[in-house]
Protein backbone atom coordinates (compact mmCIF):
# COMPACT_ATOMS: atom_id res chain seq x y z
CA UNK A 1 0.00 0.00 0.00
CA UNK A 2 1.68 3.19 -1.16
CA UNK A 3 -0.67 5.95 -0.08
CA UNK A 4 -3.15 5.61 2.73
CA UNK A 5 -5.37 8.64 2.42
CA UNK A 6 -8.15 6.58 0.79
CA UNK A 7 -8.70 4.43 3.88
CA UNK A 8 -10.62 6.87 6.10
CA UNK A 9 -12.76 8.23 3.23
CA UNK A 10 -15.49 5.60 3.35
CA UNK A 11 -16.05 5.70 7.14
CA UNK A 12 -16.19 9.51 7.00
CA UNK A 13 -18.75 9.45 4.19
CA UNK A 14 -20.83 6.84 6.04
CA UNK A 15 -20.76 8.79 9.30
CA UNK A 16 -21.65 12.05 7.51
CA UNK A 17 -24.50 10.27 5.71
CA UNK A 18 -25.81 8.89 9.01
CA UNK A 19 -25.53 12.34 10.59
CA UNK A 20 -27.63 13.90 7.80
CA UNK A 21 -30.15 11.06 7.75
CA UNK A 22 -30.60 10.97 11.53
CA UNK A 23 -31.13 14.76 11.64
CA UNK A 24 -33.73 14.78 8.86
CA UNK A 25 -35.73 11.71 7.80
CA UNK A 26 -34.81 9.49 10.74
CA UNK A 27 -35.30 12.07 13.46
CA UNK A 28 -37.63 9.96 15.59
CA UNK A 29 -35.86 6.65 15.09
CA UNK A 30 -35.31 4.37 18.08
CA UNK A 31 -32.42 2.71 16.32
CA UNK A 32 -30.32 5.45 14.76
CA UNK A 33 -28.91 8.67 16.09
CA UNK A 34 -26.53 11.27 14.66
CA UNK A 35 -22.90 10.32 15.30
CA UNK A 36 -22.39 13.73 16.92
CA UNK A 37 -25.05 12.84 19.51
CA UNK A 38 -23.39 9.44 19.98
CA UNK A 39 -20.08 11.16 20.62
CA UNK A 40 -21.74 13.43 23.18
CA UNK A 41 -23.30 10.36 24.85
CA UNK A 42 -19.88 8.72 24.92
CA UNK A 43 -18.41 11.81 26.63
CA UNK A 44 -21.28 11.66 29.11
CA UNK A 45 -20.44 8.02 29.87
CA UNK A 46 -16.81 8.99 30.36
CA UNK A 47 -17.78 11.85 32.67
CA UNK A 48 -20.10 9.84 34.93
CA UNK A 49 -17.61 7.00 35.23
CA UNK A 50 -19.88 4.33 33.76
CA UNK A 51 -17.55 3.86 30.79
CA UNK A 52 -14.55 3.18 32.98
CA UNK A 53 -16.45 0.84 35.30
CA UNK A 54 -18.03 -1.19 32.49
CA UNK A 55 -14.79 -1.38 30.51
CA UNK A 56 -12.88 -2.42 33.59
CA UNK A 57 -15.32 -5.22 34.31
CA UNK A 58 -15.27 -6.56 30.76
CA UNK A 59 -11.52 -6.35 30.28
CA UNK A 60 -10.88 -7.75 33.74
CA UNK A 61 -13.13 -10.76 33.19
CA UNK A 62 -11.70 -11.33 29.72
CA UNK A 63 -8.12 -11.12 31.00
CA UNK A 64 -8.80 -13.41 33.95
CA UNK A 65 -10.54 -15.95 31.73
CA UNK A 66 -7.70 -15.79 29.22
CA UNK A 67 -5.19 -16.30 32.02
CA UNK A 68 -6.98 -19.41 33.31
CA UNK A 69 -7.76 -20.82 29.87
CA UNK A 70 -4.37 -19.90 28.44
CA UNK A 71 -2.38 -21.47 31.28
CA UNK A 72 -4.49 -24.64 31.17
CA UNK A 73 -4.14 -24.82 27.39
CA UNK A 74 -0.40 -24.20 27.60
CA UNK A 75 0.11 -26.89 30.24
CA UNK A 76 -2.02 -29.48 28.44
CA UNK A 77 -0.63 -28.57 25.03
CA UNK A 78 2.97 -28.90 26.26
CA UNK A 79 2.32 -32.30 27.79
CA UNK A 80 0.47 -33.55 24.72
CA UNK A 81 3.11 -32.12 22.40
CA UNK A 82 5.99 -33.84 24.22
CA UNK A 83 4.23 -37.10 24.89
CA UNK A 84 2.76 -38.62 21.73
CA UNK A 85 0.94 -41.49 23.44
CA UNK A 86 -0.96 -39.09 25.68
CA UNK A 87 -1.87 -37.04 22.62
CA UNK A 88 -3.31 -39.97 20.73
CA UNK A 89 -5.19 -41.24 23.78
CA UNK A 90 -6.77 -37.90 24.62
CA UNK A 91 -7.52 -37.06 20.97
CA UNK A 92 -11.11 -38.33 21.09
CA UNK A 93 -11.98 -36.64 24.41
CA UNK A 94 -10.63 -33.31 23.18
CA UNK A 95 -12.47 -33.61 19.87
CA UNK A 96 -15.72 -34.28 21.77
CA UNK A 97 -15.35 -31.27 24.10
CA UNK A 98 -13.74 -28.75 21.75
CA UNK A 99 -16.63 -28.17 19.31
CA UNK A 100 -19.09 -27.23 22.09
CA UNK A 101 -19.87 -23.58 21.29
CA UNK A 102 -18.76 -21.45 24.25
CA UNK A 103 -22.11 -19.64 24.35
CA UNK A 104 -23.83 -22.96 25.04
CA UNK A 105 -22.11 -22.90 28.43
CA UNK A 106 -23.58 -19.51 29.36
CA UNK A 107 -26.75 -21.04 30.88
CA UNK A 108 -24.71 -23.68 32.71
CA UNK A 109 -22.29 -21.10 34.09
CA UNK A 110 -25.30 -19.01 35.11
CA UNK A 111 -26.74 -21.98 36.99
CA UNK A 112 -23.51 -22.83 38.80
CA UNK A 113 -22.00 -19.41 39.53
CA UNK A 114 -24.92 -17.00 39.25
CA UNK A 115 -24.19 -13.65 37.62
CA UNK A 116 -20.83 -11.95 37.98
CA UNK A 117 -17.13 -12.22 37.27
CA UNK A 118 -16.77 -15.97 37.94
CA UNK A 119 -19.44 -16.92 35.45
CA UNK A 120 -18.00 -14.75 32.68
CA UNK A 121 -14.44 -15.83 33.45
CA UNK A 122 -15.37 -19.51 33.26
CA UNK A 123 -16.98 -19.15 29.81
CA UNK A 124 -14.01 -17.14 28.51
CA UNK A 125 -11.61 -19.75 29.93
CA UNK A 126 -13.48 -22.56 28.18
CA UNK A 127 -13.46 -20.63 24.90
CA UNK A 128 -9.72 -19.84 25.02
CA UNK A 129 -8.35 -23.14 26.32
CA UNK A 130 -8.83 -25.05 23.03
CA UNK A 131 -7.11 -22.74 20.55
CA UNK A 132 -4.19 -22.25 22.96
CA UNK A 133 -3.98 -26.01 23.52
CA UNK A 134 -3.94 -26.77 19.80
CA UNK A 135 -1.37 -24.09 18.98
CA UNK A 136 0.85 -24.95 21.97
CA UNK A 137 0.76 -28.63 21.07
CA UNK A 138 1.69 -27.89 17.45
CA UNK A 139 4.46 -25.54 18.58
CA UNK A 140 5.98 -28.08 20.99
CA UNK A 141 5.86 -30.79 18.33
CA UNK A 142 7.93 -28.65 16.01
CA UNK A 143 10.76 -28.18 18.46
CA UNK A 144 14.02 -29.36 16.93
CA UNK A 145 14.34 -32.96 18.26
CA UNK A 146 18.04 -32.44 18.92
CA UNK A 147 17.21 -29.77 21.51
CA UNK A 148 15.18 -32.35 23.41
CA UNK A 149 17.99 -34.87 23.06
CA UNK A 150 20.36 -32.29 24.52
CA UNK A 151 18.06 -31.78 27.49
CA UNK A 152 17.94 -35.55 27.99
CA UNK A 153 21.73 -35.81 27.72
CA UNK A 154 22.15 -33.03 30.28
CA UNK A 155 19.71 -34.88 32.53
CA UNK A 156 17.72 -31.73 33.12
CA UNK A 157 14.93 -31.87 35.65
CA UNK A 158 11.40 -31.58 34.09
CA UNK A 159 11.13 -28.01 35.40
CA UNK A 160 14.46 -26.95 33.87
CA UNK A 161 13.65 -28.84 30.72
CA UNK A 162 10.46 -26.81 30.38
CA UNK A 163 11.94 -23.44 31.36
CA UNK A 164 15.28 -23.70 29.55
CA UNK A 165 14.52 -25.74 26.43
CA UNK A 166 10.80 -25.98 25.64
CA UNK A 167 9.57 -22.52 26.58
CA UNK A 168 12.20 -20.46 24.71
CA UNK A 169 11.74 -22.66 21.64
CA UNK A 170 7.97 -22.20 21.49
CA UNK A 171 7.74 -18.60 22.74
CA UNK A 172 7.27 -16.89 19.35
CA UNK A 173 4.47 -19.30 18.49
CA UNK A 174 2.90 -18.93 21.91
CA UNK A 175 2.53 -15.24 21.24
CA UNK A 176 0.58 -16.10 18.10
CA UNK A 177 -1.70 -18.15 20.35
CA UNK A 178 -1.90 -15.25 22.81
CA UNK A 179 -2.91 -12.89 20.04
CA UNK A 180 -5.70 -15.24 18.95
CA UNK A 181 -6.69 -15.77 22.58
CA UNK A 182 -6.99 -12.03 23.20
CA UNK A 183 -9.36 -11.63 20.24
CA UNK A 184 -11.50 -14.58 21.34
CA UNK A 185 -11.56 -13.55 25.01
CA UNK A 186 -12.81 -10.07 24.20
CA UNK A 187 -15.50 -11.33 21.82
CA UNK A 188 -16.73 -13.98 24.24
CA UNK A 189 -16.76 -11.59 27.22
CA UNK A 190 -18.90 -9.07 25.34
CA UNK A 191 -21.18 -11.84 24.08
CA UNK A 192 -21.70 -13.25 27.59
CA UNK A 193 -22.70 -9.77 28.79
CA UNK A 194 -25.09 -9.25 25.90
CA UNK A 195 -26.70 -12.66 26.34
CA UNK A 196 -26.93 -12.90 30.13
CA UNK A 197 -24.48 -11.29 32.54
CA UNK A 198 -25.79 -7.90 33.70
CA UNK A 199 -22.38 -6.16 33.93
CA UNK A 200 -19.80 -4.66 31.61
CA UNK A 201 -19.88 -2.97 28.22
CA UNK A 202 -22.00 -5.68 26.56
CA UNK A 203 -24.74 -5.18 29.12
CA UNK A 204 -24.45 -1.39 28.86
CA UNK A 205 -24.99 -1.72 25.11
CA UNK A 206 -27.99 -3.99 25.62
CA UNK A 207 -29.46 -1.72 28.29
CA UNK A 208 -29.17 1.39 26.12
CA UNK A 209 -31.11 -0.40 23.38
CA UNK A 210 -33.80 -1.52 25.80
CA UNK A 211 -34.18 2.00 27.16
CA UNK A 212 -34.58 3.27 23.57
CA UNK A 213 -31.54 5.52 23.73
CA UNK A 214 -30.03 5.17 20.24
CA UNK A 215 -27.32 7.79 20.80
CA UNK A 216 -25.97 5.94 23.82
CA UNK A 217 -26.32 2.59 22.02
CA UNK A 218 -24.24 3.81 19.08
CA UNK A 219 -21.75 5.28 21.55
CA UNK A 220 -21.26 1.89 23.22
CA UNK A 221 -21.08 0.13 19.87
CA UNK A 222 -18.39 2.54 18.67
CA UNK A 223 -16.51 2.11 21.94
CA UNK A 224 -16.63 -1.70 21.66
CA UNK A 225 -15.35 -1.45 18.08
CA UNK A 226 -12.55 0.94 19.02
CA UNK A 227 -11.60 -1.17 22.04
CA UNK A 228 -11.46 -4.34 19.95
CA UNK A 229 -9.38 -2.62 17.30
CA UNK A 230 -6.97 -1.10 19.83
CA UNK A 231 -6.46 -4.25 21.88
CA UNK A 232 -6.06 -6.49 18.85
CA UNK A 233 -3.59 -4.05 17.31
CA UNK A 234 -1.61 -3.95 20.57
CA UNK A 235 -1.55 -7.75 20.81
CA UNK A 236 -0.45 -7.97 17.18
CA UNK A 237 2.32 -5.41 17.69
CA UNK A 238 3.51 -7.24 20.81
CA UNK A 239 3.61 -10.56 18.99
CA UNK A 240 5.41 -9.19 15.95
CA UNK A 241 7.88 -7.22 18.02
CA UNK A 242 8.75 -10.33 19.98
CA UNK A 243 9.01 -12.45 16.85
CA UNK A 244 11.41 -9.92 15.33
CA UNK A 245 13.50 -9.77 18.47
CA UNK A 246 13.80 -13.52 18.61
CA UNK A 247 14.59 -13.66 14.92
CA UNK A 248 11.75 -16.05 14.18
CA UNK A 249 9.19 -15.89 11.43
CA UNK A 250 6.78 -12.98 11.77
Amino acid sequence: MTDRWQGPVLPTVLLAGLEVFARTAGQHSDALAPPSAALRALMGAVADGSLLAATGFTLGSAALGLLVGGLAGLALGTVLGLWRQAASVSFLTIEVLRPIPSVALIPLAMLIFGFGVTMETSVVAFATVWPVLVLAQAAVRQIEPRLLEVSAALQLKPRDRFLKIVLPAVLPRLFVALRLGVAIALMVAVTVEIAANPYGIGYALMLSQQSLNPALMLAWLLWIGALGLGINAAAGALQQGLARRMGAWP
Partner: protein
Amino acid sequence: MKLDLRHTAGSVALLAAMLGLWWLASHLGWMNRAFLPTPEAAFGALGDGFTGGSLGSDTLATVGRMLLGWGLASLCGVVLGALIGSSEAARRWLQPTLEFMRPLPASALMPLAIALFGLSAGMVLAVVAFGAMWPVLLATVHGFGALHGRLREVGRALQLSRRAFVAQVGLPHAMPDILAGMRLSMTISLIVSVVGEMLASQPGLGQAILLAARSYQASELFAGVMLLGGIGFASNAALAAAEAHLLRWQRR
Protein backbone atom coordinates in the same frame (compact mmCIF):
# COMPACT_ATOMS: atom_id res chain seq x y z
CA MET B 1 -2.66 -38.72 12.82
CA LYS B 2 -2.08 -42.44 12.75
CA LEU B 3 -5.05 -44.21 14.20
CA ASP B 4 -3.94 -47.72 14.92
CA LEU B 5 -6.07 -50.04 17.00
CA ARG B 6 -4.23 -49.60 20.29
CA HIS B 7 -4.51 -45.83 20.17
CA THR B 8 -8.16 -45.96 19.21
CA ALA B 9 -8.81 -48.27 22.14
CA GLY B 10 -6.89 -45.89 24.42
CA SER B 11 -8.88 -42.94 23.11
CA VAL B 12 -12.18 -44.66 23.75
CA ALA B 13 -11.01 -45.82 27.17
CA LEU B 14 -10.14 -42.25 28.21
CA LEU B 15 -13.51 -40.97 27.02
CA ALA B 16 -15.20 -43.80 28.94
CA ALA B 17 -13.13 -42.92 32.01
CA MET B 18 -14.29 -39.30 31.72
CA LEU B 19 -17.90 -40.48 31.56
CA GLY B 20 -17.19 -42.70 34.57
CA LEU B 21 -15.81 -39.69 36.44
CA TRP B 22 -18.95 -37.74 35.58
CA TRP B 23 -21.05 -40.69 36.85
CA LEU B 24 -19.10 -40.82 40.11
CA ALA B 25 -19.15 -37.05 40.61
CA SER B 26 -22.91 -36.87 40.18
CA HIS B 27 -23.77 -40.03 42.13
CA LEU B 28 -21.47 -39.36 45.08
CA GLY B 29 -22.64 -35.75 45.25
CA TRP B 30 -19.24 -34.12 44.67
CA MET B 31 -21.18 -31.43 42.90
CA ASN B 32 -24.72 -30.30 43.54
CA ARG B 33 -27.18 -32.39 41.53
CA ALA B 34 -28.92 -29.15 40.54
CA PHE B 35 -25.85 -28.28 38.43
CA LEU B 36 -24.51 -31.66 37.46
CA PRO B 37 -27.11 -34.24 36.49
CA THR B 38 -26.21 -37.93 36.36
CA PRO B 39 -25.12 -39.11 32.90
CA GLU B 40 -28.13 -41.40 32.67
CA ALA B 41 -30.47 -38.50 33.46
CA ALA B 42 -28.80 -36.32 30.83
CA PHE B 43 -28.94 -39.01 28.15
CA GLY B 44 -32.49 -39.82 29.26
CA ALA B 45 -33.46 -36.19 28.80
CA LEU B 46 -31.85 -36.32 25.37
CA GLY B 47 -33.96 -39.35 24.42
CA ASP B 48 -37.17 -37.95 25.93
CA GLY B 49 -36.58 -34.61 24.24
CA PHE B 50 -36.47 -36.28 20.86
CA THR B 51 -39.41 -38.67 21.34
CA GLY B 52 -41.83 -36.57 23.35
CA GLY B 53 -40.34 -33.10 23.62
CA SER B 54 -39.30 -30.37 21.26
CA LEU B 55 -35.57 -31.14 21.04
CA GLY B 56 -35.95 -32.49 17.51
CA SER B 57 -37.63 -29.37 16.17
CA ASP B 58 -35.30 -27.13 18.21
CA THR B 59 -32.27 -28.85 16.70
CA LEU B 60 -33.70 -28.47 13.21
CA ALA B 61 -34.45 -24.78 13.83
CA THR B 62 -30.91 -24.07 15.07
CA VAL B 63 -29.23 -26.09 12.32
CA GLY B 64 -31.43 -24.43 9.70
CA ARG B 65 -30.65 -20.95 11.01
CA MET B 66 -26.96 -21.74 11.16
CA LEU B 67 -26.80 -23.23 7.64
CA LEU B 68 -28.93 -20.50 6.06
CA GLY B 69 -26.92 -17.74 7.73
CA TRP B 70 -23.67 -19.45 6.81
CA GLY B 71 -24.79 -19.93 3.21
CA LEU B 72 -25.79 -16.28 2.87
CA ALA B 73 -22.56 -15.19 4.56
CA SER B 74 -20.42 -17.36 2.29
CA LEU B 75 -22.21 -16.22 -0.85
CA CYS B 76 -22.05 -12.50 -0.01
CA GLY B 77 -18.52 -12.85 1.36
CA VAL B 78 -17.13 -14.56 -1.74
CA VAL B 79 -18.95 -12.27 -4.22
CA LEU B 80 -18.06 -9.04 -2.41
CA GLY B 81 -14.57 -10.31 -1.63
CA ALA B 82 -13.95 -11.20 -5.29
CA LEU B 83 -15.24 -7.78 -6.40
CA ILE B 84 -13.07 -5.94 -3.90
CA GLY B 85 -10.07 -8.24 -4.14
CA SER B 86 -9.82 -8.21 -7.92
CA SER B 87 -9.50 -4.44 -8.05
CA GLU B 88 -6.46 -2.66 -6.72
CA ALA B 89 -8.39 0.58 -6.26
CA ALA B 90 -11.28 -1.05 -4.36
CA ARG B 91 -8.79 -2.68 -2.01
CA ARG B 92 -7.15 0.65 -1.28
CA TRP B 93 -10.45 2.39 -0.54
CA LEU B 94 -12.25 -0.35 1.35
CA GLN B 95 -9.76 -2.62 3.09
CA PRO B 96 -9.06 -0.36 6.12
CA THR B 97 -12.81 -0.13 6.82
CA LEU B 98 -13.17 -3.89 6.44
CA GLU B 99 -10.29 -4.51 8.83
CA PHE B 100 -11.99 -2.24 11.35
CA MET B 101 -15.08 -4.47 11.29
CA ARG B 102 -13.13 -7.68 11.88
CA PRO B 103 -12.56 -7.48 15.67
CA LEU B 104 -16.12 -6.27 16.35
CA PRO B 105 -18.01 -9.14 18.05
CA ALA B 106 -20.93 -10.16 15.83
CA SER B 107 -23.21 -10.37 18.84
CA ALA B 108 -22.54 -6.67 19.60
CA LEU B 109 -24.61 -5.89 16.50
CA MET B 110 -27.58 -7.74 18.00
CA PRO B 111 -28.89 -4.73 20.01
CA LEU B 112 -28.66 -2.48 16.95
CA ALA B 113 -30.44 -5.10 14.84
CA ILE B 114 -33.15 -5.49 17.50
CA ALA B 115 -33.69 -1.72 17.43
CA LEU B 116 -33.83 -1.71 13.64
CA PHE B 117 -35.81 -4.87 12.87
CA GLY B 118 -37.45 -5.91 16.15
CA LEU B 119 -37.33 -9.35 17.79
CA SER B 120 -37.88 -11.50 14.73
CA ALA B 121 -36.41 -14.56 13.07
CA GLY B 122 -35.31 -12.36 10.17
CA MET B 123 -33.37 -10.12 12.55
CA VAL B 124 -31.45 -13.10 13.99
CA LEU B 125 -30.75 -14.44 10.50
CA ALA B 126 -29.49 -11.02 9.38
CA VAL B 127 -27.06 -10.78 12.30
CA VAL B 128 -25.89 -14.37 11.76
CA ALA B 129 -25.24 -13.74 8.07
CA PHE B 130 -23.63 -10.34 8.66
CA GLY B 131 -21.42 -11.53 11.51
CA ALA B 132 -20.34 -14.69 9.70
CA MET B 133 -19.62 -12.84 6.45
CA TRP B 134 -16.42 -11.11 7.65
CA PRO B 135 -14.09 -14.11 7.81
CA VAL B 136 -15.10 -15.19 4.29
CA LEU B 137 -14.98 -11.66 2.89
CA LEU B 138 -11.58 -10.85 4.36
CA ALA B 139 -10.17 -14.26 3.42
CA THR B 140 -11.36 -13.81 -0.17
CA VAL B 141 -9.89 -10.30 -0.38
CA HIS B 142 -6.64 -11.65 1.07
CA GLY B 143 -6.60 -14.60 -1.33
CA PHE B 144 -7.05 -12.27 -4.29
CA GLY B 145 -4.52 -9.82 -2.91
CA ALA B 146 -1.87 -12.54 -2.66
CA LEU B 147 -2.30 -13.33 -6.34
CA HIS B 148 1.06 -13.37 -8.08
CA GLY B 149 1.68 -10.46 -10.45
CA ARG B 150 2.72 -12.92 -13.17
CA LEU B 151 -0.74 -14.48 -13.10
CA ARG B 152 -2.27 -11.07 -13.79
CA GLU B 153 0.11 -10.68 -16.72
CA VAL B 154 -0.88 -14.12 -18.01
CA GLY B 155 -4.52 -13.09 -17.70
CA ARG B 156 -3.86 -9.94 -19.71
CA ALA B 157 -1.81 -11.82 -22.29
CA LEU B 158 -4.63 -14.31 -22.75
CA GLN B 159 -7.02 -11.34 -22.98
CA LEU B 160 -9.26 -12.79 -20.29
CA SER B 161 -12.21 -10.60 -19.34
CA ARG B 162 -12.33 -9.57 -15.69
CA ARG B 163 -15.07 -12.08 -15.03
CA ALA B 164 -13.19 -14.92 -16.70
CA PHE B 165 -10.04 -13.96 -14.81
CA VAL B 166 -11.88 -14.03 -11.49
CA ALA B 167 -13.55 -17.37 -12.24
CA GLN B 168 -10.60 -19.18 -13.78
CA VAL B 169 -7.58 -17.77 -11.96
CA GLY B 170 -8.60 -15.69 -8.95
CA LEU B 171 -11.14 -17.96 -7.26
CA PRO B 172 -9.17 -21.22 -7.58
CA HIS B 173 -6.11 -19.40 -6.28
CA ALA B 174 -8.01 -17.93 -3.33
CA MET B 175 -9.81 -21.23 -2.58
CA PRO B 176 -7.61 -22.34 0.38
CA ASP B 177 -8.12 -18.94 2.04
CA ILE B 178 -11.85 -18.94 1.28
CA LEU B 179 -12.37 -22.43 2.70
CA ALA B 180 -10.49 -21.54 5.89
CA GLY B 181 -12.68 -18.44 6.19
CA MET B 182 -15.82 -20.49 5.61
CA ARG B 183 -14.86 -22.86 8.41
CA LEU B 184 -14.46 -20.00 10.87
CA SER B 185 -17.68 -18.53 9.54
CA MET B 186 -19.57 -21.77 10.33
CA THR B 187 -18.41 -21.58 13.95
CA ILE B 188 -19.55 -17.95 14.17
CA SER B 189 -22.90 -18.84 12.57
CA LEU B 190 -23.59 -21.42 15.26
CA ILE B 191 -22.55 -19.07 18.07
CA VAL B 192 -24.58 -16.11 16.82
CA SER B 193 -27.59 -18.34 16.11
CA VAL B 194 -27.56 -19.56 19.71
CA VAL B 195 -27.13 -16.03 21.12
CA GLY B 196 -29.90 -14.77 18.84
CA GLU B 197 -32.27 -17.48 20.00
CA MET B 198 -31.50 -16.62 23.62
CA LEU B 199 -32.05 -12.88 23.14
CA ALA B 200 -34.95 -12.82 20.70
CA SER B 201 -36.82 -15.88 22.06
CA GLN B 202 -36.71 -17.63 18.72
CA PRO B 203 -37.34 -21.38 18.77
CA GLY B 204 -34.10 -23.37 18.85
CA LEU B 205 -31.54 -24.94 21.12
CA GLY B 206 -30.32 -21.56 22.40
CA GLN B 207 -33.73 -20.78 23.82
CA ALA B 208 -34.15 -24.38 25.01
CA ILE B 209 -30.99 -24.40 27.13
CA LEU B 210 -31.69 -20.94 28.54
CA LEU B 211 -35.20 -22.01 29.61
CA ALA B 212 -33.81 -25.27 31.03
CA ALA B 213 -31.27 -23.33 33.12
CA ARG B 214 -33.90 -20.85 34.34
CA SER B 215 -36.13 -23.70 35.51
CA TYR B 216 -33.19 -25.64 37.05
CA GLN B 217 -33.63 -28.59 34.67
CA ALA B 218 -29.95 -29.51 34.59
CA SER B 219 -30.46 -32.76 32.68
CA GLU B 220 -32.32 -30.98 29.88
CA LEU B 221 -29.64 -28.28 29.86
CA PHE B 222 -26.94 -30.93 29.44
CA ALA B 223 -28.94 -32.60 26.68
CA GLY B 224 -29.06 -29.28 24.78
CA VAL B 225 -25.36 -28.57 25.35
CA MET B 226 -24.48 -32.07 24.12
CA LEU B 227 -26.58 -31.52 21.00
CA LEU B 228 -24.88 -28.18 20.33
CA GLY B 229 -21.51 -29.88 20.72
CA GLY B 230 -22.69 -32.53 18.28
CA ILE B 231 -23.74 -29.88 15.76
CA GLY B 232 -20.38 -28.15 16.09
CA PHE B 233 -18.54 -31.43 15.68
CA ALA B 234 -20.57 -32.59 12.67
CA SER B 235 -20.38 -29.28 10.82
CA ASN B 236 -16.65 -28.99 11.41
CA ALA B 237 -16.02 -32.58 10.30
CA ALA B 238 -18.14 -32.10 7.17
CA LEU B 239 -16.26 -28.94 6.23
CA ALA B 240 -12.88 -30.53 6.93
CA ALA B 241 -13.83 -33.41 4.61
CA ALA B 242 -15.06 -31.00 1.93
CA GLU B 243 -11.85 -29.01 2.27
CA ALA B 244 -9.69 -32.10 1.90
CA HIS B 245 -11.66 -33.07 -1.20
CA LEU B 246 -11.63 -29.61 -2.81
CA LEU B 247 -7.96 -28.97 -2.09
CA ARG B 248 -6.64 -32.42 -3.05
CA TRP B 249 -4.69 -30.77 -5.92
CA GLN B 250 -2.69 -28.83 -3.34
CA ARG B 251 -0.92 -31.83 -1.81
CA ARG B 252 0.44 -33.20 -5.06
